[in-house]
């Protein structure tokens, strides 16, 4: 449990600063610090066991099926890193308290910092590589927040994005690598994986896994060629740079390589990839650092260089080298953090980090100077400081390792790297602190308060202590960690003197001498450096990301530019292609069903249908004509339903068709009456081709299906047998609609109801103040209007026809269950009858004389249908179970009562209400467009011999 708690504490701690900041900055820092301290304490409690060589473990099941569990373990390596993370974290919290300006939101800062801390601790304590991945990406995210902490700095934002992109990307690669590793071993638990060196290294997937995992490590640890993000991350506040970019995050990559060292190292692939990368990074970064004037940039590249050094050591694959790596990790953490904080102090005091504007601070800031000197000398590898010890050992193992059978190459390059680092270390001291005191500092510098220099001073102290008494202060930790890395018991012998014959001695001397020489030549070299053009990381990065983002945007937005016609064209082709592929790859037997004979009159109907369809395509730009032709198509479709023994369909189709056309005419009144010729002949041909493909495909499918028998007897046989006995109706279609599949019908009437509601709501939206409303108010009829809006003949005729039509509606409704008809058709017939009345005397006039709430009509229809269905519950039967019986009621003859009829009533009401509500909405649009309401049913009064209804036109 305790390990999980150590990892969890920082996360829990992350919640506090946001609150505690209300109690002031000190309280905030105090609380944050104490949480870290507590975690450190708990770690300490586990230390003895670890140092005894035990491994502390905590296992919590999270996602067993995935093998992702909250398993933690603590060994030497973990102890070392956890110690560094929490220890330096504590110092950073202290430092940041005094570093941050009043305006900076400190609560936020500490929250992010603790999130990061937790993620780091999680990484180093994870016993499950998937869990490790979780923390790994969390460090990328939290560092994104920390680097971008100063929101107003564009370089901050870009640096944050760059860091996230590079390290996050590496993390993703690592996910793949880890999954492969897990697949090879069969477990994602580190402790298991570490047991399976042979299985892993013998697998074909070893190299991919290695590369992917190293991608993660290299990006995180800013190894060449991924080193470029680190300097840009320096836009972050100095505490962040000190913490993430010297002590901890950038070491996560090293940690991972060390962690995986037992199973991944020892192969030529490992050696050449890791060692070479490390070497290149070390030398190149050190050289660049020499020419950076910005203190933080200088330190950043020096960090990269030292990370390279450690990487190289791990790459050697020998226990000895690995041990040195571990030792240098410790040393680097101490002196580099100290230097970063000092740089921050200089920046904080002098308001600049530019070496060109500094110098002579020695007398003004003696304390800072002392700290910097100690740390820099250690960085330069000057005895007796700790940097010297690890550098000696490094040069030692470099000199003993051959690269491509070349015994001295590594040693030489390592020496050059060391030489550069001597140079830039001295330069830091010289150009910032030595020389005459200047008068032109942006702000008069002096040593800060204790709070700010305490942390670096402490680290500087460590630098000396470790330097002087390595065996006492560091060996035990190195041993523990190195043993954990190498998997064999290590006990190091760290001495300052390796004897005259140790090549390291001479290499160091060469490095120091050369370094001093470089210092001397620096001005000239600087000129040369500035003269020589170099690739600028940021520009390259942006040169990749920005165009890619632009390209991505172009692709996505061009594809989805709102060209519906293209969407449909592509969709149609895709469907056709896929369907054809499906057919082509399957076996097909031609249908054997005997065909139906052809009679002349049906052929005539077919001709009418086809001609009308063709005409629609030809004349589709004349919209009214198109509607007339659609009328013909509808007529022919419905008559063919009648011919093919589907009377219900014929009735429905013809009435729906009329309703549709009237709706379209109503809309067309406001739309343009003609469609302009817009598409090019090419486009039209192309569209035509697509249309033909679709048409031919569907026709072929229809023919193929029609000409064969069903593979199994259709379920409708059951409907045919049970319609009367079970459903109480002789019109099987209607019984299916209201009984067997009444649930479909229930959904269907709701669709109609919704349609009406949508139309109503849309109308409301259109009639609100806005462009649409303005257009309507300004609307002028685009076609000449005849007088005599309500011709007398129609009005009078309607007075007789409306009642008859209503009667027909009732008739069709009542007989629906047994003969063609039913609620839906009846509803439409009544609707059409009313439409007739509206055309005669106008909607508003009619509606004004017969107040009907169409909303209520729809809702009641739905509710009646639902209630009828639910009624069955009370007989313990499922929804929509119908009941019917035969009632004799003197003097009437026996007749049938069926719940189906009630259900059908619901259908009837909904349909009627829906059509009416739609018409009402359109009529309101007409009124808004200047139509007026008549006060008389028709416009001419023969009895008076004058025109009625005339008043001022609106």
């Amino acid at each position, binding site marked *: 449990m305790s390990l999980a708690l150590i990892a969890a504490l920082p996360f829990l701690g992350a919640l506090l600063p946001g609150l505690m900041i209300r109690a002031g900055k000190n309280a905030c820092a105090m609380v944050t610090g104490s949480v870290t301290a507590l975690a450190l304490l708990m770690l300490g409690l586990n230390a003895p066991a670890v140092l005894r060589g035990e491994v502390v473990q905590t296992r919590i099941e999270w*996602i*067993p099926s*995935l093998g992702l569990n909250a398993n933690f373990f603590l060994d030497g390596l973990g102890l070392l890193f956890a110690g560094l993370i929490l220890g330096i974290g504590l110092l950073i919290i202290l430092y940041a308290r005094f570093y941050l300006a009043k305006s900076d939101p400190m609560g936020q800062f500490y929250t992010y910092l603790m999130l990061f801390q937790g993620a780091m601790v999680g990484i180093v304590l994870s016993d499950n590589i998937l869990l490790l991945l*979780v923390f790994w*990406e969390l460090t990328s995210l939290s560092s994104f927040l920390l680097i971008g902490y100063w*929101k*107003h700095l564009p370089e901050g*934002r870009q640096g*944050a*994005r760059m860091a*996230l*992109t590079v390290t*996050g*990307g590496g993390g993703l690669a690592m*996910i*793949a690598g880890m*999954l492969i590793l897990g697949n090879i071993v069969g477990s994602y638990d580190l402790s298991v994986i570490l047991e399976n060196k042979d299985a892993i290294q013998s697998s074909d997937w070893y190299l991919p896994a290695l590369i992917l995992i190293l991608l993660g490590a290299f990006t995180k640890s800013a190894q060449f060629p991924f080193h470029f993000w680190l300097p840009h991350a320096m836009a972050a506040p100095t505490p962040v740079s000190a913490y993430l970019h010297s002590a901890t995050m950038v070491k996560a990559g090293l940690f991972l390589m060390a962690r995986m060292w037992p199973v991944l190292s020892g192969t030529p692939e490992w050696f050449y990839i890791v060692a070479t990368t490390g070497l290149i990074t070390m030398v190149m970064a050190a050289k660049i650092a020499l020419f950076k004037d910005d203190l933080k940039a200088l330190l950043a590249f020096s960090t990269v260089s030292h990370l390279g050094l450690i990487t190289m050591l791990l790459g050697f694959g020998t226990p000895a080298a690995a041990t040195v790596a571990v030792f240098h990790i410790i040393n680097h953490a101490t002196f580099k953090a100290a230097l970063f904080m000092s740089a921050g102090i200089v920046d904080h005091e002098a308001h600049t980090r530019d070496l060109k504007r500094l110098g002579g601070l020695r007398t003004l800031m003696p304390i800072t100077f002392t700290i910097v000197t100690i740390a820099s000398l250690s960085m330069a590898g000057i005895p007796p400081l700790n940097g010297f010890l690890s550098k000696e050992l490094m040069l030692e193992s470099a000199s003993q390792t051959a690269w491509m059978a070349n015994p001295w190459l590594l040693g030489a390059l390592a020496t050059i790297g060391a030489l550069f680092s001597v140079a830039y270390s001295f330069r830091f001291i010289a150009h910032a602190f030595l020389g005459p005191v200047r008068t032109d500092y942006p702000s008069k510098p002096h040593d800060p308060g204790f709070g700010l220099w305490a942390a670096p001073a402490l680290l500087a102290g460590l630098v000396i202590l470790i330097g002087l008494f390595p065996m006492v202060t560091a060996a035990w930790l190195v041993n523990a960690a190195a043993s954990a890395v190498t998997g064999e018991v290590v006990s190091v012998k760290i001495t300052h003197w390796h004897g005259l014959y140790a090549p390291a001695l001479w290499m160091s001397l060469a490095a120091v001498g050369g370094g001093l020489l470089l210092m001397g030549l620096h001005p000239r070299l600087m000129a040369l450096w500035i003269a020589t053009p170099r690739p600028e990381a940021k520009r390259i990065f942006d040169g990749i990301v920005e165009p*890619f983002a*632009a390209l*991505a*945007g172009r*692709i*996505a*937005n061009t*594809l989805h530019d*709102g060209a519906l016609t293209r969407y449909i064209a592509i*969709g*149609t082709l*895709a469907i056709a292609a896929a*369907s054809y592929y*499906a057919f082509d790859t*399957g*076996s097909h037997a031609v249908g054997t069903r005997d065909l139906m004979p052809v009679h002349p009159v049906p052929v005539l109907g077919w001709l009418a249908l086809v001609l009308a369809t063709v005409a629609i395509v030809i004349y589709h730009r004349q919209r009214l004509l198109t509607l007339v032709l659609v009328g013909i198509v509808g007529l022919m479709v419905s008559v063919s339903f009648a011919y093919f023994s589907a009377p219900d369909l014929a009735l429905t189709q013809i009435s729906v068709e009329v309703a549709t056309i009237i709706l379209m005419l109503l809309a067309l009144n406001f739309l343009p009456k003609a469609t302009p010729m817009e598409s090019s002949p090419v486009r039209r041909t192309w569209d035509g081709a697509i249309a033909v493909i679709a048409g031919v495909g569907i026709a072929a499918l229809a023919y193929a299906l029609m000409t064969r028998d069903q*593979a*199994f007897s259709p*379920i409708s046989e*059951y*409907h045919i047998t049970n319609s009367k006995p*079970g459903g109480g109706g002789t019109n099987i279609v209607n019984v299916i609609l209201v*009984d*067997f599949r*009444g*649930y*479909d019908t229930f*959904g269907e009437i709701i*669709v109609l*109801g*919704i349609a009406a*509601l*949508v139309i*109503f709501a*849309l109308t409301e*939206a259109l009639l*609100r103040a*806005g462009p649409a409303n303005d257009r309507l108010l300004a609307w002028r009829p685009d076609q000449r209007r005849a007088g005599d809006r309500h011709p007398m003949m129609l009005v009078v005729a309607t007075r007789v026809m409306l009642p008859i039509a209503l009667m027909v509606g009732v008739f069709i409704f009542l007989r629906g269950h047994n003969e063609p008809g039913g609620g839906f058709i009846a509803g439409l017939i009544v609707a059409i009858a009313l439409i007739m009345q509206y055309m005669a005397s106008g909607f508003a006039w009619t509606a004004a004389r017969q107040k009907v709430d169409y*909303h209520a009509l729809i809702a009641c229809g739905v509710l009646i249908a*639902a209630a009828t269905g639910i009624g069955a519950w009370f007989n313990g039967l*499922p929804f*929509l*179970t119908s009941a019917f019986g035969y009632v004799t009621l003197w003097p009437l003859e026996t007749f049938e009562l069926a719940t189906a009829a009630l259900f059908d009533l619901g259908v009837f009401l909904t349909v009627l209400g829906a059509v009416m509500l739609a018409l009402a909405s359109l009529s309101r649009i007409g009124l808004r467009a200047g139509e007026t309401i008549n006060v008389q049913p028709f416009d001419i009064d023969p009895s008076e011999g004058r025109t009625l209804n005339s008043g001022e036109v609106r």
Partner: protein
Amino acid sequence: MMYHWISVPVLLPAIMGAAIVLLMRNDLLLQRVFSLAAALGLLAVSIALLVAASNEGPEIYMLGDWPAPFGIVLVLDRLSAMMVTLTAVLAVAVLLYTIGSGWDTRGRHFHALFQFQLMGICGAFLTGDAFNLFVFFEVLLIASYGLMIHSGGKDRLRAGVQYVAFNLVGSSLFLFALAAIYSITGTLNIADLAVKAAELPQGDAALFRVAAVMLMMVFAIKGALVPLQFWLPGTYSNAPGPVAALFAVMTKIGAYAVIRFGVIVLPPGHPVTGTLISDLMLPAALLTLIIGALGILGATTLSRLAAFAAVASMGTAFIAISAFTPASTAAALYYMVHSTLAGAALFLIADLVTYRRAHDGLHQALPPIAQAGLISALFMTSAIATAGMPPLSGFIGKLLVLDALRDQAALVWSVILVTSLITIVGFARAGSSLFWKAHASAPEGDGATHPAQALSFVAVGTLLAGLVALTVFAGPVIAWIEVTAASLFDPAAYIAANQLPEVK
């Protein structure tokens, strides 16, 4: 034994919708109260159904007391129960947001349409009949048309016309497919279809394959699978925020239907369809993911970014589905649940931002918005979830998918991981230009002009909490889902539940 309760997820919203129209269409307060009550009721019922489905096997509800396959049956199994519950959770959150943000005051009939939308969605999840599935698709579609153009406006209406037109094509295709299926097999009941499709004569194979592909492409339209995804960005980015959030579950209906039919009726190794479906689906799914990721990176508005995120999430889901193994299906289901909540949250947050920013564009430097801190935190969280970054459920979901598709590791893993990177970069760019650049561009704007909208934040919080729960309890959740997936791949129980008569 839930019996009648199985029909409630459909009937409750249907009746409530009608009641709202009949009794309270002119009183917004009443509408809000009853709409929310109904949603909560739906949630309660769906949880009860979920429990029942987990404890007992699949259960059917014979509407009209007609036996399958002759009548229409509802089928309650783990999958349908899960989807209905997901819908209910989403519905509650979206309703809270709608009320909080006052979206329902900007047009008529929001709540009625919302209830009918829920009815359609639940109906689609529960039905055991292919044609009835069509009917409920239409119910939820037409309701969605209304919600999509809620409160009108030029672009919204034009996008609405496109949305309707494209989906009408889809509906036509659906009918072609169903007619073909009936024409070949003579049945519409899904279980019966499963039984009969397996015994289909060789001569019918080709035509049945055509029907199957057409059917799957209908679902692909709903699920926004390339090359049928074009409708989505325009629609979602122009829809009102809460509506777009509700739509997060609509794409899942396509995925659900693909699983339902692909696993039960056309399982891999089917004598007639074989691997036809997965062969076609995998490349399409990969393309979908890629296009979605590119869209996220290249998005010019926040709502379009969210829309493309939806596309990408469907790509990931379909990649998992296309493998048609229990493991991959489980991964798909988990990912679907996650991406529904995450996508919805993202759309709601986008609406929070857009509403305060008064501008939808991502690259316009505008003064900081009110409540920027809170909103940016919410955005960050949902971005992490959507991009599949640790620690939230998106990461777990992606791990599951990667793990389930280790056979096609080289191709699938690289696509998924690379697109993840693109997505991360996209979100990072968007977030920093929305919440950081603003501080550079102008002084703090005053939040006074914008109400705090507590309910809206509660809604977003609910969804994000859902994601956290999905992460913390990933173990049990995934275990449950794995059982669900396994049961899908052993359809015997499902078919048995339908109590089909002996085929003569």
